Structures are given as C-alpha cells and as structure tokens.
C-alpha cells in the first residue's frame, strides 16, 4: 500500500475529478471567421487531453471535429497543438499540461491547410512521403540488408507514424509552402540507408533541391516535438552530408579528368 502511494500515478485518487477549461480553436468553412470556444470539462487528472475533447463532443458540442483512432500514439492521426506545443493528445495526461481549474488550449497543427476545427489537410504531406518512396515492409517479409550497416539506425525511422507534428513545428515549413518538410526528408534518408528496391539515386536527386534538404535552417524543432524519437533534423543533416560528400567527390573527379 505504501509502495502504491509513492508511485506518482497512484498518488492520484482514482475518483478525483478536476474542472478544466478547454479553449478550443473553431473554424467551419461555412461560418466565417475562426474563433475560440470555451468548454468546462470534469475530468480525472490521469485522463488524456483527447479524453477531454471526446467528452466535449459527446456531452456538449457534436459539431466539434478532431481526428483520433488508436488512442496509444500508433496511428498519428490525432496530432494538434496543446498549449501551443505540437503533441499527440491521446498520450498527454491532463495533469501534464495544467492543474485543477486550469485551462487547456487546443489548436490545429500549423503549416497545413485547415479543414474544420482541429482537423487539417495532410494530403500534400502524405504525397511528399510518397515522393521520397517511403515504404514500410512487414517484418515477416525478407529484407536484403547490408551486414555492415547498423540495424539500430534502420529501425529508428520505422518509428515515423506520419503524424505531421514535425511539419507544424518547423519554422521553415511556415515560410515556404514548397519545402518538403522534416518527415519526407527523414524518410528520404531512411530509403537511402536501406533502399529496399528503390533507386537511391532518384531519392537523392529528389531531396537535392532548393525546397529539399538545403532549405532547412537548422532550428531542430522537428526533433523536439517528434513523439516517436525519429530525430528528423539529424536525418536531414546526414542527408546533406551525404550529398555534400558526393558533390565534392564529383568535383575532384572532374578535376582529375580535366588534367588527364
């Protein structure tokens, strides 16, 4: 019993309810300007921000739109900004972002076209992942691996759940709508590391563009918010280093040809 009370999760009374003021971004194409609505929600501190949104939808406003599916950070569909920061609300307990009587601000992701309330259009985001030839092969299927490469590096990018948080946090995605974005560039590096039948040259030339990996301004916000520890910023830098090495090598090889 004593052990249970020292556990931070168990320290909460299972029946304890907090009153939380949800301030939710609202926008419907049919009804003019975006605004914020306020909802008071009775919720246990260990319940998640998404639980609160579902309570609002169930008991207060059926017109509130937001995406959700798995409730355990696997599907990547519920990504929003909680108190300004990109998060998956399905894994954020209320007690992590506010206290009893406090406010939780819920807004849609930045840098995506707005569809309705907390829902944004991820179509272009998915298309850019496809352009990077990003693919995940089931573990039961045989994959030809280069035995000299580290399998740890390979498995890291498997973790991308395509939630779009990185694009929302990226300041460059805010200023350049044509920028491929951190997820697609991390996927490109992933496919270069382990092509799985894809031509790595085409992935490289796709990333080696003005709006590709060179557009990144090294803010590292993508890696800060990634819920799967993909570290897209490090992948973009690795991609740049790889391209730079190849360019320098080509330059010197060309010099050798000229001298010959």
């Amino acid at each position, binding site marked *: 019993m004593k052990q249970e009370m020292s556990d931070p999760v168990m320290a909460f009374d299972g029946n304890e309810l907090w009153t939380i003021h949800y301030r939710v971004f609202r926008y419907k194409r049919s009804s003019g300007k975006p605004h914020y609505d306020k909802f008071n929600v009775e919720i246990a501190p260990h319940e998640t921000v998404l639980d609160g949104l579902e309570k609002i939808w169930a008991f207060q406003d059926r017109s509130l739109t937001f995406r959700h599916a798995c409730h355990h950070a696997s599907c990547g569909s519920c990504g929003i900004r909680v108190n300004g920061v990109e998060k998956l609300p399905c894994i954020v307990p209320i007690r992590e972002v506010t206290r009893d009587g406090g406010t939780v601000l819920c807004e849609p992701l930045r840098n995506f076209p707005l569809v309705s309330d907390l829902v944004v259009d991820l179509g272009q985001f998915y298309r850019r992942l496809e352009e990077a030839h990003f693919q995940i092969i089931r573990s039961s299927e045989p994959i030809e691996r280069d035995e000299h490469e580290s399998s740890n590096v390979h498995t890291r990018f498997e973790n991308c759940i395509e939630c779009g948080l990185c694009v929302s946090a990226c300041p460059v995605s*805010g200023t*350049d709508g044509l920028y491929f974005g951190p997820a697609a560039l991390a996927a490109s590096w992933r496919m270069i590391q382990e092509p799985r039948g894809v031509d790595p040259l085409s992935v490289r030339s796709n990333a080696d563009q003005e709006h590709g990996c060179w557009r990144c301004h090294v*803010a590292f916000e993508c890696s800060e918010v990634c819920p799967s520890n993909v570290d897209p910023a490090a992948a973009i830098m690795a991609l740049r280093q790889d391209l730079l090495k190849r360019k320098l090598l080509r330059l010197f090889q060309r010099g050798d040809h000229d001298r010959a």
Partner: protein
Amino acid sequence: MTEHEERRVRKTLAWLDMAGRKAGTWAFLLNRLTGLGLLLYLLLHLGVLSLLAMGEMQWDAFIALARSPLFLVLDVVLIFGILYHGLNGIRVALVGMGIGVRWQKGIFWTLMGLGVLLLAITGWLVFTM
C-alpha cells in the same frame, strides 16, 4: 492587397510565430533579424562614407555625432548583431554539413557564451576608449 501579397505577408509573419517553440526557432529568428540588420547597416555605412566626398566639415560633424552616448549604444547593438550572426553561423555551417549534429545544442550555447564574453569586452572598450 492581392491574395498573393496577403499570403506572402502571412508567411513572413510566420517567422514571428513563437508559440510553443524552443531555442532553435529563437536562434533561427534572431539569425534572420540580425542578418537584415547587418544588411541595413552596410547600406547606412556606405551612405555615411559618401559624406567624405562632401568635404571636411560634413565629416567632422558626423564624427562628433558618432561619439555621442546614443551612437555608442548603437555601436554595441551592431557588435551584438555581428557576434550573434557570425557565431550562430558557425553552428549552422558545421551542423548543416553534418558535423557535430548530436552536440548542436552544446555548440550553440558554448558559442553564445563566447559571444556574451566578447560583447562585454567590446562594449567596455567602446565606452572607455
């Protein structure tokens, strides 16, 4: 304002959207602002140098103004811009080539520490020499 112009303004203002952002975006924003500031300074500097062609009196009058305390404060602001842009530029160039990516935060704060030290020394020199 056309829709295209509105979009450009909105995208430029996106620089200033700091909600929920961390040191990386502050570094990015400050790099852009100091870059623009240094460009503006360069243009002003060229304009001031053109006073030389207008004779000794104009130049001496400017030098007297340049020694006023307000101008000296502006000198320190200029030194801050040069130091920040240059030192953060070293981090961006190194990390952007894939060097020291894992230690980029440490590189940033070390360079900023060096910048504060250099700013304190040069600021002291500006007001005492």
